[in-house]
């Protein structure tokens, strides 16, 4: 187990390094030039000073040299400045991480029980009308464009009915908790609807499989009530692999969060990355993306480890 953990961690570090190089090169291909962006509107700008600035920042060097420099400073805690916010990128990203974490945690808290409930209901009688209805719901969930759902909800609940705010965060920084929650209702609804479909399909499939297995038949034969069978046996067995499904869904949930944050104007990681790319803020875009990638990779690593730890049948070599 220890050897497995260590080897997976080493692999993850390697993957993160490779990803950082790829992202570094990719971000370098965004339009514009960092020096030009920095000195925009400066009248004393001459081609000479531009070249000097480039040399100063090492921008005239080949990409792998620049990556080496970047990696060196990054490992020493210097991730550079945001050219839009004029602050170190970590200072910009800190509150954004909190914002996104709130959004994602709220979504998961609602999605997981909802998925278990709907999945269990559907699995009770596969092919029945409850199952058909729930499966229709799951199809809608994977087919709906999140940005459109957001717009429709804003039109209905904010514009027409005026019940809920159209922005995801209160304008005042020191809003009360209830006010914060009210602002979160629409974004979390959209994200939950987007997230829950694949989960429901997964829970349903694994519940049907478990309900057909011999040990469940035994449980039924010894006279356990149907709800006891479902809750104590089927659901519990469906839970373990769900850890993996949740972790694998993290990347797509984060993608959903980017869209939702952008539409509801919430300054989370997704919105920050979107703005950074739109405004050609090289450092911020790079670090934001890299952080998102690392978190996704780590979540899938944790899932694998948790899976191995939870399921006694898995023996790791």
């Amino acid at each position, binding site marked *: 187990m220890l*050897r497995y953990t*260590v*080897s997976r961690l080493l*692999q993850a570090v390697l993957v993160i390094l490779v990803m950082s190089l790829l992202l570094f090169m990719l971000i370098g291909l965004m339009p514009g030039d960092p020096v030009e962006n920095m000195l925009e509107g400066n009248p004393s700008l001459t081609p000479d000073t531009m070249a000097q600035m480039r040399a100063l920042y090492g921008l005239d060097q080949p990409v792998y040299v620049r990556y080496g420099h970047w990696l060196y400073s990054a490992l020493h805690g210097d991730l550079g400045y945001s050219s839009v916010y004029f602050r170190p990128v970590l200072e910009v990203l800190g509150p954004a991480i909190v914002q996104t974490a709130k959004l994602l945690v709220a979504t998961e808290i609602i999605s997981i029980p909802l998925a278990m409930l709907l999945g269990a209901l559907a699995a009770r009688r596969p092919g029945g009308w409850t199952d058909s209805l729930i499966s229709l719901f799951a199809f809608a969930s994977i087919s709906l464009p999140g940005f459109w759902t957001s717009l429709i909800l804003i039109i209905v609940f904010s514009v027409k009915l005026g019940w809920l705010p159209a922005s995801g965060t209160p304008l005042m920084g020191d809003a009360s908790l209830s006010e914060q929650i009210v602002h979160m209702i629409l974004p979390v609804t959209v994200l939950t609807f987007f997230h829950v479909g694949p989960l429901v399909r997964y829970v349903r499939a694994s519940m049907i499989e478990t309900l057909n297995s011999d040990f469940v038949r035994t449980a039924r034969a010894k006279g356990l009530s149907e709800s006891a069978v479902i809750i104590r046996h089927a659901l519990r067995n469906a839970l373990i692999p769900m850890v993996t499904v949740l972790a694998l869904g993290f990347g797509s949930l984060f993608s959903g969060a980017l869209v939702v944050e952008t539409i509801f104007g919430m300054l989370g990681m997704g919105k920050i990355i979107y703005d950074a790319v739109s405004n050609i803020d090289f450092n911020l875009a790079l670090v934001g993306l890299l952080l998102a990638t690392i978190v996704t990779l780590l979540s899938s690593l944790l899932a694998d480890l948790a899976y191995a730890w939870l399921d006694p049948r898995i023996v790791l*070599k």
Partner: protein
Amino acid sequence: MTELLTLDRISVDIPLDGGFLKPKTILQAVNDVSLTVSKGETLALVGESGSGKTTLGYVVAGLRKQTAGTVTFGSSQRNADGSPPVQVIFQDPFSALDPRMIVGEIVAEPLRLKGVSAKERLARAAEVLGQVGLPPEAAGRYPHQFSGGQRQRIAIARALIAEPEMIVAGEPLSALDVSIQSQVLNLLDDIKQQHGISYLFISHDLGVVRHLADRVAVLYLGRLMEVASRDDLFATPSHPYTQALLAAVPRIGKGRRKKEQILRGEMPSPLAPPSGCVFHTRCPRAQAICRETRPQLLPAPGRPTQLSACHFKD
């Protein structure tokens, strides 16, 4: 008789992936095996599962490369790619036929690979299907429309169409119903009589081996224990392992087995074969020398053609 196939000191080592941060382990599937098969002769390879008989069959068929030793075919014929005129029949008649091809295409495949024209090979396919007892109409159907026994006949037809000099048959009966087994066994026997094809017949069913084989080679943990003519081997088995195998065949009315012939314990892991004679951990005659020295394959006392690798052979 001329030697059709000569196996000279064949070894097959299979490296097993140890995974990240773990050393690779090597499985000695076949170790230093020398055998010959004459033209028209049937050599049976027998042994428990894990004895390396299938791996050895794959080497002969060219499906696996030996790590050491040479395979020589005493034949001038070659396939288009230079491979020898060998065909195979597999154990499972369901996975042996491509479910997306019609039977005519399946049977004619070896000719297709030789570049024979479509018209000619379909005519040949119908002919060969007749030889194995299937109507020519079968050519237009898909494999799933046939029973296990019929599928095995189709597989035999595919092997026959290329007019091979040798067929490697890997337990071709064991997946079939008992009632079908004897039909297919007779078919194999007929083919042998009519076409003079050599078989390398891999089996753990000694009853079938006794019916079909001319000579028998006994493998244990990838090593050759004994090789002899069928009559010698069944009448006077020399190696204690052969004796145990023969004693394990259920017979009616022969009374209880002699105690010393019952195999003790499990077969050791082929990843860590025992020292000296690999059979010593289960052998009723094992002495100190068996743990230290690997016995040579030498004639049994008084029977120059019966070779046995045992320090205390009969």
